[in-house]
């Protein structure tokens, strides 16, 4: 009984975190056809920026409650700056290349940013645990949950709703959907694809940085955290169907619950449960759960 609840709650918490990471990744892929490995770097930059900003803010003696605003501001700043640098500085020069070449371009960016992060923040770990502990905890039988983790579920839900609303209920969002559906046709119809690309990459970047910033109070921020995240996010996005936001949501939930179930019932298999799920889904649905059937061009 407790175990089942724990699996659901822990799974959903993990899924919320995964979704925020994966949402940006899948959006960028959907619009730009770039499977962005450097999304991991954005996550890392977001985490480092938030951790040092919160530490700086609190050590200046300001009200602890304000640290949540600092966190969000850090995410926004980190995502925008890094996103612009990557898109304008590198990707812009590479548009039109093969999808796989683009993966490698973003891999090179990931390598470079790993060292840039090291040059800025060093290799010491950073922690800004205050926002995590400030919200207190919830008792449930023998277990306790951190309210911060539970709040993360709400944040993820808000991100999902906002993305759905923007894409389906606003003019700009619909234009994005058009580009996702057929880039050449939308360019022919007069949509400024370059601008759409910049904006999309920035949104993706801010989401990646936000995921990192939201994680900063939970973990100790160390070199390499971006690389660890990226494969997980890939798995989620592939399970859900590349480019699909609903897919990323369902994919996160599946991966999150599966992982929590493994931790509680069979800790031995935690290491590869995610890849097992990915293989199963791909074997049954070759293009992921929410993929649109692609027209075969002759």
């Amino acid at each position, binding site marked *: 009984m407790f175990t089942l609840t724990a699996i659901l709650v822990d799974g959903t918490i993990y899924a919320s975190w995964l979704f925020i990471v994966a949402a940006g990744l899948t959006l960028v892929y959907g619009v730009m056809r770039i499977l962005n490995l450097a999304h991991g770097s954005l996550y890392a930059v977001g985490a480092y920026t938030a951790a040092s900003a919160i530490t700086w803010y609190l050590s200046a003696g300001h009200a602890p409650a304000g640290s949540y605003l600092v966190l969000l501001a850090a995410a926004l700043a980190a995502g925008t700056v890094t996103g612009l640098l990557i898109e304008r500085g590198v990707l812009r020069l*590479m548009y039109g290349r093969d999808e796989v070449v683009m993966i490698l371009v973003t891999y090179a960016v990931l390598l*470079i940013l790993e060292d840039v992060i090291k040059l800025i923040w060093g290799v010491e770990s950073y922690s800004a645990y205050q926002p995590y502990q400030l919200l207190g905890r919830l008792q449930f039988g023998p277990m306790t949950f951190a309210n911060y983790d539970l709040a993360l579920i709400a944040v993820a839900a808000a991100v999902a709703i906002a993305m759905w609303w923007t894409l389906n209920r606003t003019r700009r969002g619909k234009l994005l959907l058009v580009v996702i559906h057929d880039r050449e046709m939308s360019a022919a119809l007069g949509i400024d694809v370059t601008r759409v690309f910049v904006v999309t990459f920035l949104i993706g970047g801010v989401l990646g940085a936000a995921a990192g910033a939201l994680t900063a109070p939970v973990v100790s921020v160390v070199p390499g955290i971006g690389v660890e995240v990226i494969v997980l996010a890939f798995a989620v996005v592939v399970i859900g169907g590349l480019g699909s936001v609903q897919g990323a949501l369902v994919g996160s939930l599946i991966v999150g619950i599966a992982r929590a179930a493994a931790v509680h019932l069979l800790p031995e298999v935690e290491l590869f449960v995610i890849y097992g799920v990915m293989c199963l889904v791909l074997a049954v649905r070759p293009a992921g759960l929410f993929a649109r059937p692609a027209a075969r061009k002759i």
Partner: protein
Amino acid sequence: MRTDPGTRGFLIAAAVLLAAGPFLPKWLSYIATISLGYALVVAGVVLLMRAGLVSFGQGLYFCLGGYAVGAAGKYWNLGDAFVLLAAAVAVSVAVAALLGLLLARYREIFFAMFTMAFSMILYGLLSKSQALGSTDGFNVSHATFLGYAPVALQGWLYAAAVVLSMAVAIALQRYLRSGMGYAGDAIRENEIRVEYLGISVYRVVYLKYLVAAGLGGLGGGLAALASGHVGPDMAYWTTSGEFVFVALLGGTQHIAAAFAASFLFELIKTYAFELSPYTWQMMLGVVLLAIILFLPSGLWSLVARGREALR
């Protein structure tokens, strides 16, 4: 038998490399041996890439080949390099024969991700198997050559790697110029038209996948013999990613590009480690970006350009 220019090229390259062997500094001939092993895996990646398939999971066969060599030495006391390498190829091809049934239906990014998932599962399994040393892996015993146990093992391994990989390169070169080889290029261009020609795309892809797996196993076996150690990180996704990287670095026009690129990549890494121990990743990233930006068809386009100029 008439030798075509490609074959002649590889024969000359083999002769040059063998003759140069004793004069190379030891660390360099080691890097050459290792990079020949990697190059075989890369050649497999190139083969698939020419058919429009990008495998982000060749580490699976690289690792299987390595572990086959290691385990055969450890548990059955097999020591002969050629037997061990044959075992590496056999294990890889056997696994590929099974997985290929499923994978040959996948294309594009899904092929890439699915292959990656399988190699990550192997990584997970090996990381859990304490008998095989978990993530630490285990050491591979010294190889013998047809009953002879050389003292200067490194030189022998280098020679064996040169002979083996050049032989494989010649065979691959011929394969790519055959009907089956060209079918791959056609599949990349347009699968449906190939089907209309009465060729089974599924079968062509399946066969190519088997060949690539065999190459991966052979490369892994060779790398294991040279480095003397195997570990699950051989199946980690970054290893597979590096193979794809090197394939693109060289370019897919010619099989020789895989060998040149793989050697160059190892050298770049060694120099990056030596020259900037704190920022080698950045150096690597910048070099890679520069190559993608300025040599979009890989290093081989330099050779092609040079040949144009000479003509």
